[in-house]
């Protein structure tokens, strides 16, 4: 009988209106590497937040046993006290402090309130050696690359006498060789008796290091696979990850595009390359080419961080990235999309992923937001005709069924679904040929989703081209005529409606 270091028993966590976790079980053996996999939004991070005490004891149901004793954490300090350390996807380092200062942040080596620097530096050197990072303790963290920062995070965990290390997609932002180094480090820790939980999407990593796998789907643990007892194929994991039945319903298109009966090509992108705006040597988008026809809904599938939003924003007036290269043809002609006004004028619209941050002026009314991208159309020589403006926004309110007493309502008072409809109104009023919709149904309830889907279908029926970016694969499968699969800044596959399935998309991503 092996020792179980951590057992989470039927954990249920409810947010207002949503059951994020539904009696999830997780068992981690002492000294193993346990992989936790699942789609975006499946509940992995929520589970880890329950474990680390971000969601304190009492805010969830179920028990957590650590080294055979029931624990009740009320915050991160409690879990760290026991030796459970979580390293988040977004690194929690202070870039303007040195490595040594970061390692002992909140955990300083103090003598009567005064920091003992010699001790700090010597301990830092020891920890850096353990993680194999050859840097001076006084180097500022901001000067390190992402891979090295990750190592600093791990060293920080070691400084706290870690027993169970949790890594949330540690290799998502890393290059191939940095990832390999990191995985080797995990294996080394395992030899020293430190257990780890590895959250990842990359199946090749799992087959390389994991001893067992827990698959989470829709907030429930689906299966636990023991890699040591049996051989697990990637297909098995993929099936468990996505194998839900199509519970959602999608509105039926009136004139679906049939094979070989596509409209004319509206948009054609070729050789699209984009570099990171700050780290100029990091290429974010690699040689992407795609096209959109009139009346077609084209999906872009890919996990978070695969570069979908960056692609969309770089196309839309170069709102993201540096050193952008490539060619875009709209209706067959080369289009100048170098600024947002030019992109709008060329007939492109981009509905942003984050509607509150990037899409809406929350303090303003529906009317103001609706006309914002095309104020010239409601004004003559710079003077706005408020009557026309009111009529326009009123029309969209009715057409899109925005539930509000009047268009004078401030958009911050609207629900997520209605806010999204306001964003759509704004972009419809700019009269685009091609709309790029980035996560158009994120954070919206099921009923409003259906309405948004219907609007998207109508757009396609009207002969517009729609590019739909989404993390929810069923949504893409239900809506799109064609799906491009994106991973790490590249298109790794293209599937038409007849051939697309979640398994195929997932395997294209994980095998890329």
């Amino acid at each position, binding site marked *: 009988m092996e020792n179980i270091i951590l057992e989470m028993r039927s954990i249920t966590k409810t947010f207002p209106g949503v059951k994020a976790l539904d009696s999830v079980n997780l068992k981690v053996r002492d000294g193993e590497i346990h992989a936790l996999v699942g789609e975006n939004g499946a509940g992995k991070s929520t589970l880890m937040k329950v474990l680390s005490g971000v969601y304190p004891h009492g805010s969830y149901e179920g028990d957590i046993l650590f080294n055979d004793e029931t624990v009740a954490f009320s915050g991160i300090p409690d879990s760290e006290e026991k030796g459970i350390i979580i390293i988040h996807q977004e690194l929690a380092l202070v870039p303007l402090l040195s490595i040594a200062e970061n390692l002992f942040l909140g955990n300083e080596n103090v003598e009567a309130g005064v920091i003992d620097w010699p001790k700090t530096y010597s301990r830092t050197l020891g920890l850096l050696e353990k993680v194999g990072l050859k840097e001076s303790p006084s180097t500022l963290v901001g000067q390190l690359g992402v891979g090295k920062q990750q190592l600093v995070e791990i060293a920080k965990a070691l400084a706290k006498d870690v027993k169970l290390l949790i890594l949330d997609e540690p290799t998502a932002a890393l290059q191939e060789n940095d990832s390999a180094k990191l995985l080797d480090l995990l294996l080394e820790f395992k030899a020293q008796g430190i257990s780890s939980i590895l959250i990842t999407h990359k199946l090749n990593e799992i087959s390389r290091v994991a001893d067992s796998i827990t698959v989470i789907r829709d907030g429930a643990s689906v299966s636990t696979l023991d890699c040591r007892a049996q051989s697990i194929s990637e297909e098995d994991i993929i099936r468990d990850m996505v194998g839900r039945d199509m519970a959602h319903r999608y509105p039926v298109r009136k004139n679906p595009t049939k094979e070989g009966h596509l409209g004319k090509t509206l948009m054609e992108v070729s050789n699209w390359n984009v570099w990171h705006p700050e780290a100029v040597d990091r290429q974010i988008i690699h040689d992407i080419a795609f096209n959109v026809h009139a009346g077609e809904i084209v999906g872009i599938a890919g996990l978070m961080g695969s570069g979908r939003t960056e692609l969309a924003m770089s196309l839309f007036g170069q709102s993201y990235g540096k050193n952008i290269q490539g060619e875009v043809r709209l209706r067959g002609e080369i289009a100048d999309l170098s600024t947002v006004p030019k992109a709008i004028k060329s007939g492109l619209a981009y509905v942003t992923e984050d509607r509150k941050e*990037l899409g809406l002026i929350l303090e303003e009314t529906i009317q103001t937001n609706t006309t*914002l991208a095309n*104020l010239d159309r409601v004004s003559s020589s710079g003077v706005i005709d408020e009557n026309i403006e009111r009529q326009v926004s009123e029309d969209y309110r009715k057409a899109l069924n925005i539930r509000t007493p009047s268009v004078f309502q401030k958009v911050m008072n609207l629900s997520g679904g209605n806010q999204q409809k306001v964003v759509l109104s*704004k972009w419809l009023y700019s009269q685009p040929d091609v709309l790029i919709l980035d996560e158009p149904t994120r954070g919206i309830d099921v009923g409003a989703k259906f309405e948004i889907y219907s609007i998207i279908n109508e757009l396609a029926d009207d002969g517009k081209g729609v590019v739909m970016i989404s993390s929810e694969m069923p949504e893409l499968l239900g809506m799109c005529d064609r799906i491009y699969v994106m991973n790490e800044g590249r298109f790794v596959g293209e599937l038409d409606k007849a051939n697309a399935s979640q398994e195929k998309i997932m395997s294209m991503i994980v095998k890329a």
Partner: protein
Amino acid sequence: MTTKETSTVVQSAPSVTSYLKSHMRDYGMLIALVVIMGMFQFLTDGTLMRPVNLTNLFLQNSYIIIMAIGMLLVIVAGHIDLSVGSVAGFIGALAAVMSVNYDLPTILVVPVCLVVGLIIGGLQGYWIAYWKIPAFIVTLAGMLVFRGLTLALLEGQSVGPFPKSFQLLSTGFIPDVFGVGRPNVTALVLGVLAASAIVFLAARSRSRALKYGIQDEPFSFFIVKNALVAIAIIYLSYLLSTYRGLPNVLMTMAVLIAVYTFLTNSTTIGRRIYALGGNVKAAKLSGINTERLTFLTFANMGMLAALAGLIFAARLNTATPKAGFAMELDVIAAVFIGGASMTGGVGKVIGAVIGAFIMGVMNNGMSILGIGIDWQQVIKGLVLLAAVIFDVYNKQKAR
């Protein structure tokens, strides 16, 4: 959710009190101004509203109000301009050197000074808009630079007096075309015209709003409000007419208030400035040239600061190295008292004007009462804080 929505859809005629409660943010400061004026009128035994003092009140505050209009745009755009006092002082000095030392005609001095102000504002705006240097820092630097340049230009001394033509900028009055003199009939006529224009515009917009079924202001409230505004304007113009009539400055101010109210309410530029202040990223992704707008906002501020500087110099009839000192603080305070939001995107021209008048009436009233400058500062500071707290409180209640 649904029940709440339907209950608001049904537009039963709301009572005056409930309407006033829900629009406390809009009328709160106007009511405060009236109360403060009433209080000082009482405390000073009627001195406050005497025609002489009323004329002085306008002259004393004109430059603050003119700059507050520009500052409103800057603050709505999500920035701040700390340099306006120094710029006003510098332009006053420049005007003095040009007209006193070099005997240049006023007709040349005024436009040159306005253009210089525009360029100064533009230069500061350039760094803020295109280099993304925080406005606080750029204009703090500008504040020091132009304070220093004022001293340099005046060689540390006061320069004056100005020629008669220049003094008219501040001390001139609209002559009585009817030849009566006192009471000044022109002033009365203009007052009545202004009052009727305001009532006419209000009635027109109300009837339009009614046509679209979006009016929630009770009719009685509408009548009372507009009657009060009209009476107040006519009464003020009557008071002024018994002294020397309407000051030129008052006309300049009225025109500026009207123009900038129109600009902020009804033009694409105004709308885009609000959008930029409300959410700069969303504005940019909606195709708004946020950099150019920020630049223009600061250039405009520079020009208005220059105009204020000219009026201030004309009023003192001399340019002093200390002119405009700490004026930016009064201007910024006026804008915030008037309900603008520190984070940008919210604020009205008329609010900033009311804010400036609240400060002005308090300055004037407390001076008449003989309250020392020490306690004046304390009271003004507390009023600023109270106004902003009132605003935040109303905002929270509205949510």
